[in-house]
């Protein structure tokens, strides 16, 4: 077991501030166990960056169930209600037209529209809700300051711990990460505001 290689010098570069600690791993297993260690140590603002999904990573990070489902459900329900109200108003009240001898407020003819609007608004809620929950769009992320980080889409597995994490203390976090067999641990800086 070789000691990890530290990529950053101790004094922060001028005009920059520490954004996160980035640990690099050679295997998905090490990455998963590192996440479990961080979770067990009480960290909450950390993430994994891997070339492919790793089974069990959600639990290892301690992620709660996504709230997206509720957003989609609300979007769908809005679509159903909106379509029903719209058709009821247009065909039933505002400008009633008898078509095919059916009553103006026939529900069966509204169902395809209710279905379509349900699907449409569900899909909108899913896409834009996902953007919102992922805090997108954003122009840049401090992770891209690290030259090493590009390997996350090739053959390396990363864990990043944000400084905003209440448990974050540079020395102790670094020490904790170094116990998880990383290939390297890097301090990543961003422009100070």
């Amino acid at each position, binding site marked *: 077991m070789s000691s990890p290689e530290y990529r950053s010098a101790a004094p922060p570069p001028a005009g920059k501030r520490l954004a996160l600690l980035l640990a690099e791993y050679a295997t998905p297993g090490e990455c998963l166990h590192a996440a479990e260690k961080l979770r067990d140590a009480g960290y909450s603002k950390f993430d994994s960056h891997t070339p492919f999904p790793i089974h069990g990573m959600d639990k290892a990070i301690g992620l709660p169930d996504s709230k997206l*489902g509720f957003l989609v459900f609300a979007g769908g329900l809005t679509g159903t209600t909106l379509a029903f109200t719209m058709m009821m108003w247009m065909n039933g009240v505002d400008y009633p037209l008898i078509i*095919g001898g059916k009553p103006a407020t026939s529900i069966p003819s509204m*169902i395809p529209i209710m279905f379509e609007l349900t699907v449409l608004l569900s899909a909108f809620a899913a896409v834009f809700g996902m953007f919102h929950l992922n805090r997108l769009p954003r122009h840049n992320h401090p992770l891209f300051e690290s030259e090493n980080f590009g390997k996350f889409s090739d053959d390396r597995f990363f864990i990043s711990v944000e400084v905003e994490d209440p448990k974050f203390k540079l020395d102790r976090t670094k020490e904790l990460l170094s116990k998880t067999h990383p290939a390297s641990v890097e301090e990543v800086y961003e422009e100070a505001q």
Partner: protein
Amino acid sequence: MTEAKTASLAPSAKNADGPSVRLQGKNPWLNAWKIALGVGILGVGISIGAGAMGGEHSALHERFAFSYLFAFQVTLSIALGSVFFILIQHLSSAGWSVTVRRTAEFLASGLVVMAVLFIPVWLCKGTLYPWWNAENAPAEHHASNEVVGTTTLTSHQTHGDDQVKEPEHGEHAGQGEHAGHHGDHAEGAVKHDHATGHDPNDEALEAEEHHLLAKKRWWLNHDFFNGRAVLYFLVWAFLGWTLYKRSVDQDKAKDFKTTNFLKAFSTIGTILFALSLTFAGVDWIMSLQPMWFSTIFGVYLFAGSFVAALATIILVTLGLRKSGVLLKEITVEHYHDLGKLMFGFNVFWAYIAFSQMMLIWYAGLPEETPFYHIRWFTDEVHHKASGWQTVSLALLGLHFAAPFVFLISRNIKRRLQLLGVGAALILTMHIVDIYWLIFPNLRERFEVSLLWLDIAALIGVASLYFAFVLHRMTKNALIPIGDPRLARALTFENA
């Protein structure tokens, strides 16, 4: 599921056989087939006895015919839905479902007994299908008209037969009596006269229906009907038994050849499955009301069957789990996926059901609407509520809406008891669905009714089928221990 757990499971794919995948010792499932056999013989015996007790044209006999057809169709739909489950797993080379597939294979193997269980339906064909007796047996025509009762559609149909077979239809004694059923029009011999009123369109409508039935004679005739029934059962026994037998043989052989064979077999199998299920539905359910047709009917039956089969697979595997087997082989991950499939195809069922209903409602064609007419509106003849509207609404609320809201949550699908509740609800409503398809065609009683005979027949037929299925279970491993993809199923997780 953590890595540690999957890691401890993974090697066991090599020696998966063991007490956790076999029914042995004091497992209550070992003797279940004997109980099922006893209950089945009792149930079928009682209902056949009741059917035989009344004369050939008695109300009891007719009721038995419909009860038995209902029981048979419920059972058949579960077996056929299971076949489809296996077929798509092979076609998609699914890894996750390998451990669940064996339960479906047991259910599919039961198709070989369905031919025997069909015999009472075949014997009652004259009572069930209004087009049957009208054709070749003029002597029975009178009697069949007596049974043919309240719906205007069947009356058209009988007239139609007359025109096809006997141009001098006006002289039939049966028709006078027939029209009498419909109200005050004693002049049954005048064929335009019936209870729907004095609409001048009736004449045109009736001519159209005569024409339609004459056109359907090439399909709805004795020899072709019998021949098709033989063909369906040959195809189903072939499908069900091949899928089951080749898979259990693989338990010992542990070869890749079987897996490749079954994948190729499933391509042809899926086509055979789709055609046989559709046409059997046309023959045995749609032709209860021979004037009516719907091109999506086969898909409707298929959707219901697959949902019912998934619900049955969930309930059977949960039952096995309760007895202490398949604890690590079929995990919450598998149940979650089965739940997702069941949820999705239940929505598909509703989608097809609505599509069929909306097109017929929108077009309002007189030869199509009676299907919904007798399932929605009040009885025209007796001017009282038939109750079928309530059943139709129950299908909407409890087959679609309630399971939709209940099972949409991931957490509920992953809680096995709640998933079991959802599966039980869907299976129950599937039985109601088949009931709703068959019983409104009962000519003696137009209203909704549930007789002890219906329940006895259902329990009887289903038990005989399950006796066979449960017996297969005692003889084989409960998961395909020789399947090369077994390891993938044992370590499966939803991402």
